């Protein structure tokens, strides 16, 4: 049986929890063989493969995955703090270059102190440095230097999550109001 080009790397990266980005040659191969890989991951690992226009990633049903939660907390805090400073956080995350020191400043002065201090990945500068390394390995951010980084299109997964979360909350509130 013939396998698509980069088969080993595609499977390896996705199973490592990485986002495969459109800038990567593997992405085209993955997209061209979307049906094959969709079935492959579903039948072999029971994972769902989501291929968007500019990134692809694997989804598992394990809801207790801590890293996903920590990434959501991190991006959520970042958006909240950027908005507090009067910035358009979507533009910032999409286009701006972030500095580890700037992130430290935002989180150290955040009103979500308890949440940050109780999170092992975000509690201090050293932990955040390791955490950014993890995000970099997973292609969620791209390191431009030791301290500077930009977000890759993978950030959209988390923005969609927040949007759906808000819709869910609003729907729940409306249902409560209707029943009252």
């Amino acid at each position, binding site marked *: 049986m013939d396998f698509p080009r980069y088969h080993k790397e595609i499977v390896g990266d996705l199973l490592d929890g990485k986002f495969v980005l459109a800038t990567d040659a593997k992405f085209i191969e993955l997209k061209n063989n979307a049906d094959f890989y969709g079935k492959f991951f579903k039948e072999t690992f029971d994972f769902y493969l989501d291929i968007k226009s500019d990134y692809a990633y694997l*989804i*598992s049903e394990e809801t207790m995955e801590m890293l996903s*939660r920590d990434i959501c907390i991190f991006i*959520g805090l970042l958006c909240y703090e950027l908005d507090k400073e009067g910035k358009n956080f979507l533009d910032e995350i999409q286009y701006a270059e972030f500095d580890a020191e700037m992130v430290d400043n935002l989180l150290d002065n955040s009103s979500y102190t308890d949440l940050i201090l109780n999170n092992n990945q975000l509690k201090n500068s050293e932990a955040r440095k390791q955490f950014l390394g993890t995000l970099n390995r997973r292609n969620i951010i791209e390191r431009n230097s030791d301290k500077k980084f930009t977000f890759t299109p993978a950030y959209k997964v988390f923005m969609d999550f*927040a949007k759906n979360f*808000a819709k869910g*909350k609003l729907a729940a509130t409306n249902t409560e109001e209707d029943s009252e």
Partner: protein
Amino acid sequence: MRTEPRTILNFLSNYFDIIKELFDLQLKDGLVRREDLNAILAEHDSDILNKLIEYKFFKKIADDFEIRPMYFKFLEFILSEFKPLLPETIEKYEHSVTSLFKKIKEGINKDRNILLQRISDLNNEVRDFTEAVEKNTLRLIAETKELKSNVDKIDYREKVRKASFWIDYYITPLNTILDVSNADSITNRLLDISQYINVRRLNFDDEMARQQFEKLYVFLVQTNDDLLRQSKILTNELLPLIERIRSESMILTGWIEFLKNPNKSETPFIQKSIRAYPYNNAMYFNSLEYVQEYMQNDDVYLEDPKLSANDKWIFNKEFYREQLMKELPVPNFFEWAGVTLRSEYEDIETEKFFSLSTLLFEDDIELEFDPTADRQVIRTSDMNLRVPKIKIKIKRHGLS
């Protein structure tokens, strides 16, 4: 007595700071309250109320004042700060334009002067309509950009409320009015009119009316371009921009709700990394498969390999020492070493040559050499060695 226009303009220019503040108040509240007026005049230490009334800038409404429409429009224009018109207000032009057009068609062969007046009125209505659209677009752009830049740092809830307000009440309805794909839009009505006028400007009998039709036609073509441009601004710039603000605020609402209790919320199901360890559950079956595939019971014979010329050479010092001692005295040691090695091997390997040279340090021999004599070249497998001529003989022990 009628005031000189230049005097009025000079007055507006001299007191423009006050005029601008009065304009802002009316833009905001729809009129200028007396207490606000008094505060502004006191702040600027001016008493110009009488002049404002004399120049017909203000119209008195009970105790308060209103800037007369002519002045207000003029200020709107020069300040580019327009009060947005509700799309239904703009839509009224559709009725007036349609009605005038109908009358032009019906009375095309009737009174010439009435026809000319109707053409002129239609021209004015279309002009008013395009101006209203342009004003609204300008105002909407300003509002949207202000929301986007958020200089006032307004709360995201207020932002989403404002964005929704502009979309729902102004941008979307205005877009419907201008949408060329909507058969009932004013844009399409104007296209119909321009087609009709296009024919009349070429074949109408009366020269004067033909010129008026020509003028109206050119104006309608230009209007059509303007409206298309405004429509493009609305669809390509304003809607996505303001939609983005709405979406941004929705995301922020999501994050704030999520951060209230992140540990009890389901997060995106990002795959955690999977590694295949050799001791995983499948290890037994994998190993079994491997062993079964490669387990073969063929006989295996082991035998010593034959020695070859390239095998590692070990210097047998005693052997060569005995050989040297037998041949003493030797007139040239290095020559002897070369000849000895060549008798055994095809080439003189440097390593072997150096090994043999260690015999020079044996206790039982005596060395003699002339430091001034020419040196001799010995070629080994990978280098040329320049060596002195050393004579060796058996060392005599005891007193000589």
